[in-house]
């Protein structure tokens, strides 16, 4: 992949300095030349065609663009792509395997944790970060952990249930593996 910024800002003229970055996204290493002002969200969506990461408010409020950056949730509209050089990014596309949904995705499906679905990728990435730290969260802990992600449809009830469902499923899987 040569210049990703060409795809993002077509009017780009030659001579605009770019930087070469190497980023591991969902376990796969990508090298790209990016203009420093390219946002991580745009690199993911336009550059790598990983459009599961949504850009909503574009002002660091809504959390639709949440991805994991070295395992911690970040708003990818509020980070420069150059800052991800040498780091690991996980997007919503990195949750499922070829054969199975991730328990968090199953939870959102089973508990009707979405309506329009716009906030869902960000919700799921925040949920993934929460469950990695706290495999057995209370309802209150889930609500606090998701408080940087806005949903305009659900009233959050079923999102909380979905994360709870996923927590139980992941704990069951863990105990099965142990036994």
């Amino acid at each position, binding site marked *: 992949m040569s210049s990703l910024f060409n795809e993002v800002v077509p009017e780009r003229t030659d001579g605009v300095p770019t930087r070469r970055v190497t980023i591991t996204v969902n376990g796969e290493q990508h090298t790209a030349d990016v203009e*420093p*002002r390219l946002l991580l969200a745009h690199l993911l969506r336009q550059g790598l065609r990983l459009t599961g990461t949504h850009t909503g408010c*574009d*002002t660091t409020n809504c*959390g639709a663009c949440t991805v994991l950056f070295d395992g911690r*949730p*970040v708003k990818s509209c*509020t*980070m420069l792509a150059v800052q991800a050089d040498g780091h690991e990014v996980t997007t919503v596309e990195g949750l499922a395997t070829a054969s199975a949904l991730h328990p968090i995705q199953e939870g959102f499906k089973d508990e009707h944790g979405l309506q329009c679905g716009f906030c869902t990728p960000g919700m799921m990435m925040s949920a993934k970060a929460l469950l990695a730290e706290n495999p057995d969260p209370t309802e209150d802990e889930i609500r606090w952990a998701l408080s940087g992600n806005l949903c305009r449809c659900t009233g959050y009830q079923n999102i909380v249930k979905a994360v709870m469902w996923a927590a139980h499923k992941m704990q069951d899987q863990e105990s099965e593996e142990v036994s």
Partner: protein
Amino acid sequence: MYPPRFQYEAPATVEEAIALLGDGNGDAKVLAGGQSLIPMLKLRFAAPTLLVDINNIAGLDYHRVDPDGTLRIGALCRHEHLEKSALIADNYPTIAAAAPLVADPIVRTRGTFVGSICHADPQGDWAACAIALNANLVVQGPSGRRSIAARDFVHGPFETALAADEIAVEAVIPAANGTARGGYLKLERRIGDFATAGVAVSLDIVDHRVERAGIALVGVGPQTIDARDAAEALQGSVLTSTTIEQAASLAAQAAQPRSDHRGSASYKRHIVQTFTSRILTSIHGPSREAA
């Protein structure tokens, strides 16, 4: 939205970063957590020609206590490091109370304590805590380091004492002279919104007597307000309902709120009084039991 074009450098040492800032001729900005700067770039509230990203500088992400009890918070210590720190939870009640209220959980993984103070938003949580805690900012420039009291560091809305070729490398919170007590309360319409009003209180207490007090106000003026009269009223006194109400009333007088969509000026002033009283009462309660 895209940020305007800028030159980007990510040096590996503070010295290199300072040299780059010097080259920027006053038109360079330091990028730490970026949780305020990047939105401001996108909204064209800021258009520096050079961004000096300090995230690749090793050894700035600490918070630690010296043997004499001084707390040091490095320039890359993120909000969530403080939120999850047992050291903070056990010894720094003002910081421990504020950390979970800064922005939202996702922003807290990136944003930094020192960067928030340098941003000098009148609605920022940490500048108020730093003033209440009598903290200093250590800033480094081409000719070395200097230390600036937090209350003198913030000059106005988004204005600080930082020179164009200086970086705030550390916040220093002096050891409590006695038992550290304190709290932080903030009213916000929803998580992640700017504060309607907030109050930071820090007290050092010896034998139920207030040895040192600091009170600072958030979102009720053109800059973070050091409610010094309210703090001085407590100095040397024992917390009683009378001294608490006096301090709360002085804090409300120190506020310079403006009516806006978050509430009327009188409402915000009332919140300052209520929050100051509430924090002081919560400190007063357990110490009275102990007496």
